[in-house]
């Protein structure tokens, strides 16, 4: 039986970095190629030697698909394509292709910042890698080769995020990447066809969470910012260049407008323009409200949010600053943090997750004294808040997607083992389908039952119709008889006559015969009549005929009686039948061997 194999090299029972290998119908596909920011050695990238030891990824992989621009989904891409070596196609949506290099550049900067860092990609490599990317449009089926096709669906989560349906013949897999089933301020909700894939590979970051309303979190955020501003403090919001930052900007902009606030809001220099450029360019990927209002006013052109210059950090009075990077691990956000950390009136709001080892992670864990370069200690007196604005589907959302796509099997990735376990049980109970949650390196094999499409001749269909019965209905399969012709990789079901004609063959009748000896002290014709009566009573519903030529016929079976020359009471019954009545013929011979009943 054919099967589909799924092996996570990353995202198997963790949220570190996504890289999942899928083998379907003889095609090998890599889903996402992320990096782990928590490491700065070889462990940050997936170990591609598990795919092929000779380093020729191009020979092994048929394509790579990237779901969205977050680094834990695309950060290892230039390493894989330019340093390990992969020349094949890489698929991602248009916005992802545009934004991906910005984030990769951003991260490269942080990494080359580190001394002695050599095993890392260059700007040129990022560009060369992006040249291998084939952009995808939503709902457009792209033929990777003769057999493999892919189709992208809207996933919400971040601008350009996509779920993807992979199809080889009748086998199919859906990979969700990260997705969000509820619309937010700038993006819509994920959606997919009822495509009934063999496996749905879904993220499960919030596998056990039913998240509180986003409105509540937004209100909380605005309240905290407002309070700090009111008491004359400064608010630092460390963000990554694109994504959550824009959502929070819209939120603050609207709030400032409504409350008529005067405190300045700044955004790291150079980023606002770029972000706005992409949101304008890909306006069709945002939510309905933004698309509608775009004609009157572009929501990404902010009135209150201005470009930041580092000298502003020392300005007196309240202000809000969005600065990169998001984990307070380098650059401008860290510099501002160092300046503001000592004042308890100030506040830092971390709107995203921080990996271990970053200043962001430390302060979220409550550290109040940080050792900086040169053994200087930084006292953290400002308020620290963590407010998750991430746009992942919660448990309810994941169940909703299953209902949408109706998969035959479910496979959970990008989540924590314990939480996955809980969701797995819930899915199996509610949908009665198998749910898998392989660890990294573990291969899940799912056997498929592919349907093979066959062309049917019109004559055969007409004949079937002539027999009566309901009209053909794809939901109610029924048996059909015919001759299957397999020729030049096409399959056709035709009537036997047509098959003979097409193939230039003549028909041969194959008949089976057997003799049964029977003691019956009657004449041959009487014995035949007795046999007729016996069969007539036993085989109700069958066509049993006594023919004038001295034979009895049951369906295609012919029976004749003759006497043995030596013993007139010993009758020899000759049975002959065609192969279609093989079963009936065998039954009759064994029936007659038992003799005729005396009462006849």
């Amino acid at each position: 039986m054919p099967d589909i194999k799924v092996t996570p090299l990353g995202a198997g029972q963790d949220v570190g970095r996504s890289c999942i290998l899928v083998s379907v119908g003889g095609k090998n596909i890599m889903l996402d190629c992320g990096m782990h920011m928590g490491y700065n050695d070889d462990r940050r990238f997936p170990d591609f030697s598990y795919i092929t030891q000779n380093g020729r990824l191009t020979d092994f992989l048929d394509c790579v698909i990237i779901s969205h621009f977050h680094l834990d989904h695309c950060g290892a891409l230039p390493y894989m394509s330019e340093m390990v070596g992969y020349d094949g196609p890489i698929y991602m949506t248009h916005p992802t292709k545009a934004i991906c290099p910005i984030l990769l550049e951003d991260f490269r900067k942080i990494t080359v910042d580190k001394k002695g860092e050599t095993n890392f990609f260059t700007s040129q490599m990022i560009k060369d890698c992006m040249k291998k990317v084939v952009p995808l449009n939503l709902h457009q089926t792209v033929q990777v080769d003769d057999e493999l096709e892919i189709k992208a669906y809207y996933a919400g989560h971040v601008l350009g995020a996509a779920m993807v349906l992979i199809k080889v013949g009748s086998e199919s897999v859906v990979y969700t990447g990260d997705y969000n089933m509820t619309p937010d301020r700038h993006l819509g909700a994920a959606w997919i066809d009822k495509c009934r894939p063999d496996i749905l590979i879904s993220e499960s970051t919030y596998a056990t969470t039913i998240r509180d309303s986003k409105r509540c979190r937004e209100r909380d955020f605005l309240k905290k910012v407002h309070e700090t501003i009111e008491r004359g403090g400064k608010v630092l919001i460390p963000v990554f260049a694109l994504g959550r930052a824009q959502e929070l900007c819209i939120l603050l902009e609207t709030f400032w407008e409504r409350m008529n606030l005067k405190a300045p809001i700044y955004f790291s220099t150079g980023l606002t323009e770029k972000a706005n450029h992409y949101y304008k360019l890909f306006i069709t990927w945002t939510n309905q409200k933004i698309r509608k209002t775009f004609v009157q006013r572009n929501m990404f052109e902010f009135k209150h949010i201005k470009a930041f210059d580092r000298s502003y950090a020392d300005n007196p009075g309240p202000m809000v600053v969005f600065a990169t990077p998001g984990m307070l691990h380098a650059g401008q956000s860290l510099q501002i943090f160092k300046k503001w950390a000592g004042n308890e009136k100030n506040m830092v709001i971390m709107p995203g997750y921080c990996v271990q080892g970053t200043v962001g992670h430390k302060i979220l864990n409550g550290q109040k004294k940080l050792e900086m370069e040169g053994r200087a200690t930084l006292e953290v007196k400002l308020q620290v808040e963590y407010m998750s604005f991430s746009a992942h589907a919660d448990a309810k959302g994941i169940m909703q997607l299953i209902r949408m796509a109706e998969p035959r099997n479910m496979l959970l990735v990008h989540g924590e083992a314990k939480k996955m376990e809980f969701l797995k049980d819930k899915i199996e109970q509610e949908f009665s389908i198998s749910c898998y949650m392989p660890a990294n390196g573990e291969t899940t094999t799912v056997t498929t039952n592919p349907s093979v499409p066959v062309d049917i001749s019109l004559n055969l269909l007409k004949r079937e119709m002539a027999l009566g019965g309901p009209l053909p209905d794809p939901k109610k399969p029924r048996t059909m008889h015919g001759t299957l012709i397999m020729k030049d990789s096409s399959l056709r079901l035709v009537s036997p006559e047509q098959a003979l004609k097409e193939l230039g063959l003549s028909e041969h009748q194959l008949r089976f015969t057997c003799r049964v000896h029977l003691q019956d002290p009657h004449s041959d014709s009487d014995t035949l009549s007795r046999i007729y009566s016996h069969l007539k009573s036993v085989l109700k519903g069958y066509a049993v005929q006594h023919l004038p030529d001295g034979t009895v016929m049951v369906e295609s079976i012919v029976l004749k009686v003759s006497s043995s020359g030596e013993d007139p009471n010993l009758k020899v019954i000759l049975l002959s039948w065609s192969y279609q009545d093989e079963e009936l013929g065998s039954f009759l011979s064994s029936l007659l061997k038992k003799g005729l009943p005396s009462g006849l």
Partner: protein
Amino acid sequence: MESDCLSLLPSVCKVLANPKLLLPDDTSLEKLLDWFRESMSQSYGKHIIPHQPSLLQFLLSVTTSQEMDPTVFSFALKLTGLLASKEDSFNLLEEKGMLQYMFEPDNWHKLDLWKNASVRCGWLQGLWNMLQHQQAMDFFCKRDLVKLVLYLQNDKSLFIASLTNQVLAHFLNSTMLSNDFESVAQNSPASTDWASVTTKVMIHMAKSLASEEQAVVLSGLRQLAVVLTQCREPLKEMLWTHVLEPLELLANLHDGSLTQHIMAVLQVSARSPLFIKPECRVEALMEAMLCSRNANTSVQCAALILQLENCPETLERKATNVLLHPLLFVTSCSLQPHGPDYDSLFEEQLTQRISCVPLITQSLSSIADLVCKSPLDDIPVRLITLSVISLLRICLGHHSTTLQKAGTYSHLIGCCKVQRCSLDVLGSLAACKENADTVHEALAVLLLYLQCPDVHATVLKKTHQAILKWFSICSPSTDLWKTVHHDLFPLLKKHVCDGRWEVRDSTLEFIMQLTATLKGNSKYVEALHDCGMVSVLFTSLSDVEGYVRASAVAALGETLTTTDLQLSTSLQEEAVKHLLTILTEDTDSFPRRAVMKVFTSWLKSTLVFTALDHTLSSVLSLGSSDFDWEVKVHTLELADVLMDSLLNCCPYSIHTFQSSDRTGIKQALNELMVLGLFDLLLKCLFECDRPVSEKACALLLKLQTFMRETFSAGHSDLTLEISGCSWSEEMLQRCYKKQQGNESNCMKNGDQVPDLPKKVGLFELLELLDLEDMQYISSLSSDHVINSPQSIMEDILFAAQQSEENVVDCY
């Protein structure tokens, strides 16, 4: 070991032993193990357990806890192994019963822990860590742990199966460290255990190869390849004797899915003395694989055979024939007659797209390796080159009518995979001397690719790379320049306007590289200018895509170094004007970076760029206030060249001062000041992006050294205006801190700093800054993630104090 870490260790152990506390993320535990590993390799490692009783307490608590998290349990297994890698600690752990508990999963309180992949992985990793000395080996043998290791060989996790191979290879290798197997076996009871375990492993491997389950055979082959790579003689030969028979059966099965794995085994054995021993029959096995009924197997095998260094001549010849066959067959070139069976074997696979593409690409990529490695004695390179050219034509649907079979391979038309691979090979073939007279054919087909309207962008890029390689071997001839003038440049002009940015960018990159390769050639330069390529480059400076604008900048920069600039001042001026506009207005950082690089290269060149000299002050000012850290770094590189050229420290220098010529030096310094170079350096010194501040610091140190060598204190007479400068605040803070004599390391907000004078002497300023200290501090920490063991331990402790976990998210 750092004392800070050791003082934190007991608390960390307590936290990890408490299943009720929040766990740190798994990267913390991995990094903690890194620290233990490093510590164990130092002399202190031996005594760590007696000196750190908390470690033992932690491990003991793991053995008794009913609620242990699999992640912590896995960590404990790895840690136990690490600690037991030293004999003293091993004895102590064994006395306490720790080793028996940890490495015999039947003893575990929670048996279902074994179901967790991370625990199985931890068990193997711990075992591997431990197997560093004889006592550990004895423990391994006596407890029959090999049984479980062999069981894990077929684990459903790739990582675990692979780790198993490493552990077994390590064990087998360790048994052979000092003695040969026979003598070890006779020495002591412990050695007998070793011998019996080793034999058990060998028998198991042979059994795996003979298994009916393909997955078991595959893992057996993988294991064999790893073990053969790592183990020594005579074990290698003994192992080979065990596995030869099943291996021969597998080789003759001709199962395509096993080919690569069998070949990996054969390749390893061929690199060992097994290869020259006739009884080991390695060569015969290779030949069996080579003559497979599956063309793909044969070609894969041939490719691997040809990678061998001391391959027997006959085998090499056969392999070469097999390897070349798909290419020669498809292109109707004949090397030597093959039997009809042989042809039909390939024909069947080559006429079907699904098998043809991998077969051809496998053949092609190995040909490139083969040709580059060593010249082929009896195979004419020209024939191969012509075949590749024919194949490239077939892929475009441009095959000649003499190619009878070309129509059969219509599935190759437009096949990017084969096109890319063929272009790579054609490029490599340019390096062969024998190809000197194939240049025209090669260039003709490459031009055909440039002409073709629907060629994929990645294919075009490969075409460019191949053309560059062929051009670099061409002897300059009139015909060649005609081709460039009449065929190549018009096509490039067209591609620079292509709808795909990838094509426009690759084309501009190609123009840049071609110009760099051929700029010494006057005919080329003539063609470049006559064809209007320069104006095309100017147009591309306003491309919509940042990447393309950057490539246009680089290409223009390179092109202008080919001209006699005395004659084209207007061109220079126009270029500088455009580039300055980009530096000022471009929202993308790539073009701005490219502009800075071009300016730097112009300054380094021997040509005179008067137009640039006039605008240097603006260039430095724009570069210093750029948003992009890399533009700033490039500006500093330009500043470096400028300093060198004016202060006579390097080959680009345009001034030549005698060391006593202080007036000249003062003038040069003054000139640098007027240009705003010192302002740039000081501004960048306080940048938050480390590469910028580091580079600025290095340049200021260089300047300081120069000043110290040239002037005594206070004699430079060069003063800088500092009030109103963006960097003055930071500098003030720094000077104040220094004046305080580092009384306190603690940075406090709101500390008042005294005013500095509006002007300060350059010499004094450099001394005041204490640049050496700045450089030292900047070298202390530069990771984006703070990875000091102390920081990791602190993070673990603080995470445990949290009442609720921060929601994990992506980034």
